[in-house]
């Protein structure tokens, strides 16, 4: 479910196709225990041959087989590949990189399915690795580049390569990456990297109250005052700040609002606005591939696409819950502008109101130097209701090895 407005491109279609083929083969492999292994391997050779022949993958690998198994397989595999007009190379010493476990093809042979000149590229990569090892320079970025080179030959999107490296505990060199699964304070309270103010603002604070709280904590005069009490002061400060930001007419219209009328969502996300989607605590996954970034949220299984190709916000588009997002990368910061949002209820400092139809969000995702932390600031721009932009803040940490869970929802109906 992509609740933003999606646009297809060759690159993303190819990525999806790679994933589709991979999943298909994984499914086949899962059943392979009950299947003749040779037939399975030849079947997957046909699938990968087609993927390579139509340009979905530049290079495909068979599953590793013992030398004897490969001897019995290769003749027919070559015939299958030839039917698709692609080449086969029997690799007896597969390039080992940080993409896969070191022993993934240990003592086994692999068939490489490719179209020229891919084999030359692969061999050059292998040669480069050997040279680096010989020079004692196979480390850090050079080592990562070998893995990336291999991943790109396999037509993996950069986001997938990042994810595979992160999941294997590899610290990415160079520019920090947004790619990966991220965890909020709420679901990782024990992580010692969280600041006190992060925990307090785990569901999002205004930026000014975050800084106010941080300043209170850093003032030695407050050492004898509990964190809880300082946070109480901060909340009071925030209430005044937000009240001064919200237009009197908006405040007045909600003065007599009954919370019983709050949006009550029966396992459907409608009515749950962008701010809550951004700041909800379940894990998120970011994938940067080419000219777009995809953010997948566990919360509601929502998916946002952020276009980085320089396009403008379209004038004529239906309003949607998560709107239409365009973005720019500026060093370690991703700036996202979102428009065309369905008016939804928002809560700022305990004040609730409905955003106007023209409301806009500008989000800034900033990575720390080591890439482990991501701070998000979001501006809510709604001149109808606010005298100026409201800026919210919360933070996330990289969560290597985590995978997103599916948001399975079960509404209560007719109970009690």
């Amino acid at each position: 479910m992509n609740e933003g407005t999606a646009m297809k491109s060759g690159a993303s279609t190819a990525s999806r196709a790679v994933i589709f083929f991979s999943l298909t083969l994984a499914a086949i492999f899962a059943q392979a225990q009950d299947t003749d292994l040779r037939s399975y391997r030849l079947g997957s050779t046909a699938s990968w041959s087609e993927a390579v022949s139509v340009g979905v993958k530049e290079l495909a690998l068979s599953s590793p087989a013992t030398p004897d198994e490969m001897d019995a397989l290769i003749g027919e595999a070559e015939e299958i590949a030839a039917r698709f007009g692609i080449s086969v190379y029997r690799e007896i010493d597969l390039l080992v990189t940080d993409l896969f476990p070191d022993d993934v093809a240990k003592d086994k042979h692999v068939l490489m399915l490719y179209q020229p000149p891919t084999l030359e590229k692969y061999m050059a990569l292998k040669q480069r690795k050997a040279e680096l090892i010989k020079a004692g320079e196979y480390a850090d970025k050079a080592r990562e580049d070998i893995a990336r080179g291999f991943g790109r030959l396999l037509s993996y999107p950069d986001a997938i390569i990042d994810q595979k490296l992160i999941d294997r505990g590899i610290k990415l060199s160079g520019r920090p990456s947004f790619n990966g699964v991220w965890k909020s304070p709420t679901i990782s309270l024990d992580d010692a990297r969280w600041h006190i103010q992060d925990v307090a603002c785990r569901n999002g604070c205004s930026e000014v109250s975050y800084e106010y709280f941080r300043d209170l904590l850093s003032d030695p005069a407050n050492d004898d005052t509990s964190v809880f009490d300082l946070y109480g002061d901060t909340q009071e400060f925030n209430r005044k700040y937000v009240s001064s930001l919200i237009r009197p007419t908006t405040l007045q219209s909600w003065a007599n609002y009954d919370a019983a009328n709050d949006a009550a969502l029966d396992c459907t996300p409608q009515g749950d606005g962008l701010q809550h989607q951004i700041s909800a605590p379940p894990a998120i996954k970011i994938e940067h591939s080419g000219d777009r970034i995809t953010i997948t949220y566990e919360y509601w299984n929502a998916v946002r696409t952020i276009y980085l190709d320089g396009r403008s916000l379209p004038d004529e588009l239906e309003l949607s819950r998560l709107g239409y997002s365009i973005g720019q990368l500026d060093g370690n910061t991703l700036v996202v502008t979102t428009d065309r949002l369905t008016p939804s209820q928002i809560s700022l400092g305990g004040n609730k109101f409905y955003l106007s139809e023209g409301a806009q969000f500008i989000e800034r995702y900033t990575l720390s130097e080591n890439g482990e932390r991501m701070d998000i600031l979001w501006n809510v721009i709604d001149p109808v209701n606010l005298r100026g932009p409201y800026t919210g803040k919360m933070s996330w940490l990289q969560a290597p090895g985590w995978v997103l869970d599916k948001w399975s929802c079960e509404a209560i109906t007719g109970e009690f």
Partner: protein
Amino acid sequence: MNVIRKFMLVAASLLVPVIVIAHHNAASHYLLDQKITVKGVVTEFRLINPHARIYFDVTDKDGNVEKWLGEGNASSVLRRRDWKDDSLKPGDEITITGSPARDGGNKLDWESIVLADGTELRGGNTKAGELEQQLRELDKRPRRPEAKE
């Protein structure tokens, strides 16, 4: 007060059968500025979204059994905090504190649960109480080294 409140709610629920058709925002269903405490025995625990649920029986002094429902945080949050499908089991005796239902039904938005052996579980959807506990724990941590980024 809690006992009185409880029986007022029970009485109200008997007089006005209520069907709850939607769930998410706690404020729409619960009186978040009020608290009640109820003792009961778990009949079912469901670790699900949008809110975990505890079904439990409450027996009054005359031996009458009432069915109750407690709602907590989302499964997506609790599972990351090591809650499991069997974190509460049928037969577990619990003392559960939370915000009562607006409609007077036998429901609460739980803030804390105390088991028979004194173990306290949190995991509630009502953030205030849990946040207070966590902020008080943060008093043990140094403030200055981390105060400025």
